[in-house]
């Protein structure tokens, strides 16, 4: 009947899915860019200077975010249970959102006189939910070829493509994610390729352009994929085997390292003409410089271990293994390597490499000391990451692994924030963090909990009680029917 998830779509040859990210140390995305000599005005000829695209510049930002947080009124949510993702639950607590930031949190919080005060009795506050694995916009609804823009299946290595160039801001899945508490999502290319391209981190806000949704200053991610998907897609031209896959990754990194050296040398000395720019190698070189994080779709434990070795061979880091249905088999290793695991609670069995999926995966990985993340890869699951976490908690309980709510809330907030390199800005209820906040009608780990309100950067983004304010995409106008034909 219906094909709902990207992984299954992949099976039909369409391929969606994804995963992967990586590295590390290094140049913050916000650092000032080095001056690019080639772009200096050519006063001698009077012709316009070439744009910055003439050179390969670390942390270049040719499609900059135009997102600006809307003005917001100070908001105090009081007498509420707060799962902070930064410490123990605060009962009967209050949180103050002001000027886009969390201004105060605790059991007693003074609010400015003009603040909107919300009675949170019986309710819960959490940080905004973060999904580090989504295809919203690149596999937009309604489905079909016209909106299928997530897998550039023309070459096994397409490090040159950027997911943001496929994102349709009018995808009706965006407002549904927001209404379920998601405030930030990483949009990834699919998993049909060994290296699928750059991801983009978006805020769940209405905009006519993708630039208007981009999280300012967020690092890019690189999507890599192990296993069945690439070898199925390229069965006829190669790679057609897992060993072919590995040869493909290594060949790409060998080229990327040579490219990085060439450009880093030129950037340092400007000797001679600038090297030829190559979009794909540039992205890979940025990974090697630590400016782009690797998100690696990988199901099996043995393949994850091989990807870790490849990363060491070429000097980059894997930020997160995505899907990782066998992460629990090497949870100790993931903890040691500092690699997070972006997981489902209960997807499994739909293909050979997913056969060993277990519901306690998140709890087992978490208990072993690795960063566990609950991710979706699916526009429906994306709306219930809290429920997915609850399932994994319960499954863990059955095998004697107790996960507290204080730990489990991290799976959908601060841990994915870390995977995106944004844990200094979002992912927890702490003073100074962006005021991305969700008010739940009940304990979010209960099946009966609903999202009552969502704030992004302190601004009201969703209010369940006020349908007139709900974000409806352009697509939905006239297409998506309202109850009673929309009559009041």
């Amino acid at each position, binding site marked *: *009947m*219906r094909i*709902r*998830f990207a*992984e*299954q779509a992949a*099976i039909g040859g369409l391929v969606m899915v994804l995963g992967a990210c990586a590295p590390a140390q290094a140049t913050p995305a916000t650092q000032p860019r080095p001056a690019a000599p080639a772009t200096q005005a050519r006063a001698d000829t009077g012709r316009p200077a070439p744009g910055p695209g003439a050179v390969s510049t670390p942390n270049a930002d040719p499609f900059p975010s135009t997102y600006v947080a809307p003005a917001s009124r100070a908001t105090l949510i009081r007498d509420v249970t707060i799962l902070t993702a930064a410490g123990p639950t605060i009962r009967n607590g209050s949180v103050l959102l002001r000027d886009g930031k969390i201004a105060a949190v605790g059991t007693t919080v003074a609010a400015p006189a003009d603040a909107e005060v919300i009675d949170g009795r019986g309710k819960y506050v959490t940080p905004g939910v973060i999904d580090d694995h989504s295809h919203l916009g690149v596999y937009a*609804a*309604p*489905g*079909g070829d016209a909106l299928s823009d997530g897998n550039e299946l023309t070459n096994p290595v397409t490090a040159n493509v950027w997911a943001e160039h496929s994102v349709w801001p009018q995808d009706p*899945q965006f407002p*549904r994610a927001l209404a379920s508490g998601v405030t930030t999502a990483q949009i990834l290319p699919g998993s049909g390729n060994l290296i699928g391209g750059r991801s983009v981190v978006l805020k769940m806000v209405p905009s006519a352009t993708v630039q208007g949704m981009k999280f300012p200053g967020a690092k890019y991610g690189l999507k890599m994929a192990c296993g069945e998907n690439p070898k199925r897609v390229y069965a006829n031209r190669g790679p057609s085997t897992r060993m072919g896959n590995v040869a493909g990754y290594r060949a790409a990194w060998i080229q990327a390292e040579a490219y990085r050296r060439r450009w880093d040398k030129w950037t340092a000395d400007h000797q001679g003409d600038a090297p030829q720019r190559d979009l794909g190698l540039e992205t890979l070189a940025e990974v090697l410089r630590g400016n782009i994080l690797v998100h690696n779709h990988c199901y099996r434990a043995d393949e994850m271990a091989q990807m870790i070795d490849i990363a060491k061979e070429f000097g980059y880091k894997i930020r997160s293994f995505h899907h990782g249905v066998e992460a*629990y*088999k090497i949870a*100790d290793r993931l903890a040691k390597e500092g690699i997070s695991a972006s997981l*489902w609670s*209960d*997807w*499994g*069995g*739909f*293909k*050979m490499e997913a*056969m*060993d*999926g*277990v*519901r*306690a995966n998140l709890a*087992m990985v978490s208990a*072993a000391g690795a960063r566990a993340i609950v991710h*979706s890869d*699916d*526009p*429906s*699951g994306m*709306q*219930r990451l809290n*429920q997915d976490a*609850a*399932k994994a*908690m*319960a*499954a863990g*309980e*059955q*095998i*004697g*692994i107790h996960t507290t709510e204080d730990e489990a809330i991290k799976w959908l907030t601060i841990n994915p924030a870390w995977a995106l390199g944004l844990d200094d800005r979002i992912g927890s209820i702490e003073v100074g963090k962006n005021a991305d906040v969700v008010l739940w009608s009940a304990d979010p*780990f*209960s*099946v*009966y909990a*609903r999202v009552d309100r969502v704030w992004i950067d302190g601004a009201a983004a969703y209010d369940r009680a006020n349908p007139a304010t709900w974000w409806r995409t352009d697509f*939905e106008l006239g*297409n*998506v*029917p309202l*109850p009673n034909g929309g009559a009041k």
Partner: protein
Amino acid sequence: MKTGTGNRERGTVRRRSVVFIAALATVLVTTKAAVAQTVAITGGKVYPVSGPPIENGTVLVRNGTIVAVGANVAVPNGATRIDATGKWVTPGLINVLTGLGVTEIGAVPNTVDRAARGDSGIAASFPVWEGINPASTMFAPARNEGITSVVVVPTGGLIAGQAALIDLVPGTVTDMIDKAPVAMVAQFGDARSGGSNARGEQYVRLKELIEDARTYSRRRAEFDRAQTRPFAARRADLEALIPVVEGRLPLMVNADRASDIEAVLRLAREVNVKVIIAGGAESWEVADKLAAANVPVVVGSMANIPESFAALGSRQDTPALLQRARAKVVLIANGSGGEEVFNVRNLKYDAGVAVAYGMSWDDALRAITLTPAEVMGVANRVGSLQAGRDANIVVWSGDPFEFATRVEHVFIRGREVAQPSRQDELMQRYRTFPPAYRRKP
């Protein structure tokens, strides 16, 4: 419980006696409870579904059948007692839209026996249950989370084939089958996948097919002598449609767009067949019509994405809206991720979400127990806790819809089944590091 008589129903498999099946199954599987015995589940909060909840109730089971349910049931000497104090006791859950047993690994084609090739999109004769693999590893995860019966539903084409209701008992296919067929499965709206090119053409093809089956049923002797006009389908397919045209077998039609659902209702009236709507993304828009026609809707509570142009009106509160209009609602799992095979077990969470989105708790429980049993014509055997019903019973640690709730006991036809799934075995193996098989340094 009879699905028909005579050789017209050669394809019909009827269940053997409970005692026989249970006895056979014990040979194959070790279970906690012996078969021919009396089991008393005592002290729990019992939800019979066919009646009001009973605090501190007892469910008494003998030889696979429920013999008494109530607050004052005497427990005979020698009965095996299951103390359900503080627990909740419900009928086993029934998921009517699954590929269990005919889909092992979706991406490994030779483990999938769910879609027939058919003839121009018509596979009415396809008995999907003949492909069920009782050794499937997918049964245990569902059973261990409270699913005791499922309908195995074929897919593809205009007429996909015949669905079967099975109990998740260990044993052979014959042991498992409760009733087959329980429905003829068709689809309307996605014309191109069924060998047609437009909705109107699909309508006419379905109509012609059913009319031809009716004609065929009256003129079989002439057909055998080649004295009839050509029919729209092969003999076996026409034969399989006879119970449908005679009103003994419902036609379960996958349809999402409101206008498609209306077309199915029109067709049902025009050719006089019983229909069930499955999928039903926009069924809430025609809830009154569905209620008036007494047509049940098989629907989930987690689909709110306008994922196709036929499903633009998808809403999470569809079950509540249907219920409010007094249409008959059967809940299925439709969240995400293999909900027709690996996550058949998630049915209870669809019920919970349906409650969060406005359905009453009692209605939601009914929509995964008694209502599906009624819709599939097996309510005289499963779906409720009352004397005379098969003892398909689940004991829960609390509210069955909540994530934190554990399944404590699953009884199917009176036998407790507690086989670990391979997922359970994997979790035990990797519960601590290093796993036992790794050689110690």
